[in-house]
């Protein structure tokens, strides 16, 4: 995670709040009711995810405490190269749950010594392959045949992104 008060931290804060002000103003200009709807959606979202997120952060922090740093560093550290990227892709594909689970996990892995390209491979694999999402959403909603086709056409993405990230030496901010 970016350091507290660092340039990246302030940047992301500024972007988020600037965006919120602009989008809020657009809503208000179009129709004040839209503005209230937006605030309502935000409030429901916060209420919906807050308990889960709290628990996920605590769980991830405990995980961080017990994760053997040198082991993580060896397996998916900055020097783990293509093997680390492959392993990160495998972990990402089978990580269950939405971003509430995966992002605290990513931060825990990064703090334990995971490398930039490996983290990027993890996030990409979790986004595109998402085995749990296939079971929970894709097969019921879009059917097994199309879910299978989607899986097949997404298989190449995480390895290619991981290799490019490795080649250009992406680092964690």
């Amino acid at each position: 995670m970016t350091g507290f008060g660092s340039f990246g931290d302030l940047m992301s804060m500024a972007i988020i709040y600037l965006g919120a002000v602009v989008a809020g103003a657009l809503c208000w200009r179009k129709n004040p009711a839209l503005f209230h709807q937006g605030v309502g959606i935000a409030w429901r979202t916060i209420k919906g995810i807050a308990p889960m997120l709290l628990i996920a952060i605590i769980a991830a922090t405990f995980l961080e405490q017990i994760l053997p740093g040198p082991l993580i560093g060896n397996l998916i550290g900055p020097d783990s190269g293509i093997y680390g990227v492959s392993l990160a892709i495998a972990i990402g594909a089978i990580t269950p749950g939405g971003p509430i689970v995966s992002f605290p996990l990513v931060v825990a892995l990064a703090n334990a010594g995971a490398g930039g390209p490996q983290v990027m491979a993890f996030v990409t694999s979790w986004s595109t392959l998402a085995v749990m999402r296939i079971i929970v959403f894709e097969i019921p909603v879009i059917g097994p045949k199309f879910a299978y086709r989607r899986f097949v056409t997404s298989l190449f993405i995480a390895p290619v992104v991981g290799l490019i990230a490795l080649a250009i030496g992406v680092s964690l901010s």
Partner: protein
Amino acid sequence: MACLAIIGGVASYLLGGVPKLEAAATTSGFTLLQLAPRLIGAMLLAGFIQALVPRDAVARWLGAESGMRGLMLAAVAGAFTPGGPMASFPIMAAIAAAGADGGCLIAYLTAWSLLGINRIIVWDIPFLGFEFTAVRMLLCLPFPILAGLLYRRLYGARPIAELIELGKPTEDTARDREARPAE
């Protein structure tokens, strides 16, 4: 998740005793303090975007389009579709039923999962930082189109309505989409 937290807590106690527990509690609290202001801003932004983007317009843009333009439109729509899989998969099923080709739907879903603006604002930037996220987005930019092209190559550019289980979102899923928090 709660089980995981408890197991993690017990494991850290067994491995490191009280100091480990204290360290974990301090780190958790610090992480929360650091994240809370950004998450609140992010939720407000996501909420306003969700209120602004008309869902039926998204379905209309993708319904009849095809070719490269269709793929690009689909990718842009996917990136801007707010909400989690609760929102995107029912929308996709509706677009499919309206006659969109498989390649467009792949481009839509891939863009939503790789470049979803909503998720990037709420999760990627607060957790992984602005620079790392910007690099990741740049790297991932071509892949929704490439995946769509690959689909057309493998399975042909034709409507896939008959493959989709849910023809269109039911009243339940529609209501769910409204009430469901964005991921």
